[in-house]
């Protein structure tokens, strides 16, 4: 459903990604792992038009989306959950969700999506009038996920969803991602926590210095090289 070919991109004229070919098939969880600075986040940001694409093509459902602005990408069915539990901390939980639905003009659709999301995350319904900063780290990450879900996406991009979370919260977030995927939403997940990511993914891409070094399925869990470099040699 998403196909990237020969992508070169970066920031301020500096190229970070040097020719990436990448694909997500319908209903897949695709993990992107790799060392710091290998360009994992840049790859996600390229899809969401948050950095400079120098050349290459990004196709979503057979449509060229390389130069589409953010609100159009959301309408096409792609949502982005940014790194580091980024919620609007001075807004209430409900207002955070409303901002997720900002691009949806039809009020009825917003209402329906809101009800659905609150059903999926009962604690958000309970805390809908609380400020987002009063939530715990794990709850903030779940709110960020809910805020993406309200856009009714077909593909969600997760940038380091477990960053800075306690093991318990991390587990909850990973479970939620799998749950979302079971409902038919495709997922791309960029993770430092490589082992967890490979475990839940159908396929994994290993990035090194802006190039794809390796691609494969769950067998990467037992791959010696991957184990040594990314799982801390376990």
């Amino acid at each position: 459903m998403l196909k990237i070919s020969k992508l070169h991109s970066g920031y301020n004229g500096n190229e970070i990604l040097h020719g990436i070919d990448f694909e997500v098939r319908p209903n897949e969880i695709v993990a992107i792992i790799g060392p710091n600075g290998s360009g994992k986040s840049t790859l996600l940001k390229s899809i969401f038009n948050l950095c400079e694409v120098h050349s290459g093509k990004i196709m979503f459902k057979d449509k060229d989306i390389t130069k589409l602005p953010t609100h159009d990408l959301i309408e096409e069915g792609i949502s982005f959950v940014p790194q580091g539990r980024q919620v609007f901390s001075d807004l209430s939980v409900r207002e955070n969700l409303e901002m997720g639905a900002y691009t949806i003009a039809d009020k009825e659709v917003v209402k329906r999506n809101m009800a659905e999301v609150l059903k999926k995350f009962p604690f958000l319904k309970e805390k809908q009038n609380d400020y987002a900063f009063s939530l715990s780290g794990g709850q903030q990450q779940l709110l960020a996920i809910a805020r993406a879900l309200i856009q009714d996406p077909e593909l969600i991009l997760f940038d380091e969803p477990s960053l800075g979370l306690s093991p318990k919260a991390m587990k909850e977030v990973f479970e939620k991602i799998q749950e979302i995927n079971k409902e038919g939403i495709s997922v791309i997940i960029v993770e430092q926590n490589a082992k967890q990511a490979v475990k839940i993914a159908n396929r994994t891409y290993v990035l090194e210095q802006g190039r794809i070094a390796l691609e494969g399925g769950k067998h990467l869990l037992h791959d010696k090289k991957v184990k040594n470099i990314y799982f801390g040699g376990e």
Partner: protein
Amino acid sequence: MSLVLQLLMNGLIAGAIYALVASGFSLIYSTNKFVHFAHGSAVAVSAYFLYLLFSMFNFEFFLSVFLVILFAGAFGLLMDKAVYSQLRKRKASGLILLIASIALLILFESLILLFFGADVKTINLIKVEKGLEFFGAIITPLQIVIIVTSIVLLALLFVFMKRTKLGKAMRAVSDNKDVAEIMGISSTKIFAWSFVIGSAVAGVAGILIGLEQNLEPTMGTNLMIKGFTGAIIGGVGSVPGAILGSFLLGLAENFGIWFLPSGYKDAIAFVILFIFLIFRPQGILGIKKQGDKQAGA
């Protein structure tokens, strides 16, 4: 007793005007994240535009008011689009934008001087009349209009920020511009809207002060200092804080002249500004949040 009441009234009147200046300034600061001193120009230019329409061209009063408010909003938008947006495109820092705003403030002060001259102007809407006695304090009908208009407008602004989609989007951009962009909220548009709305409120301040006092080319700078102080006292970037701070400043200035000669009124504002900048730069309502630096779950 009547003196206390009189000073209280005077403080509220001053606070009402400062609050209009400060709330627009704070609104613009909260989304744009730079100090827009030329906000004072919007006040001054609006007051002179009212003088032009009403006193020179003899337009009907309410039509003049309506046109001045529209003009003020457009004036804010023009400053954003012609100057700030252009600088932003060239990746200018907040400091550069601040310097540009001081330049704009001086530019418009000079333009007013050029077109209207240095002598004070008066808008004669209402004949100076004896004020109403109110438990021994004197207050004119115009002063009551100033306080009521200010409070109603500030309440509307508050409701707008809390209840409307645009108001919430402004708060979202103020909170986290990058994430707002990811939600499809165009920060460029929100910047522009902040200028339009903030400057229109400044336009109302210009109208009210134009009716109450004389017009001088330097009035924008003077009011900007008061509005800025009010915003700092309350917590810069917080519109309710700016309103609270402005009323406190108005009251402090007026109760201060109980002890000091009235010429020290402006000095009181500066001393308060320094005290807050040194000891509580986040202002009264600027509470550091627990959740901000909390790691993990």
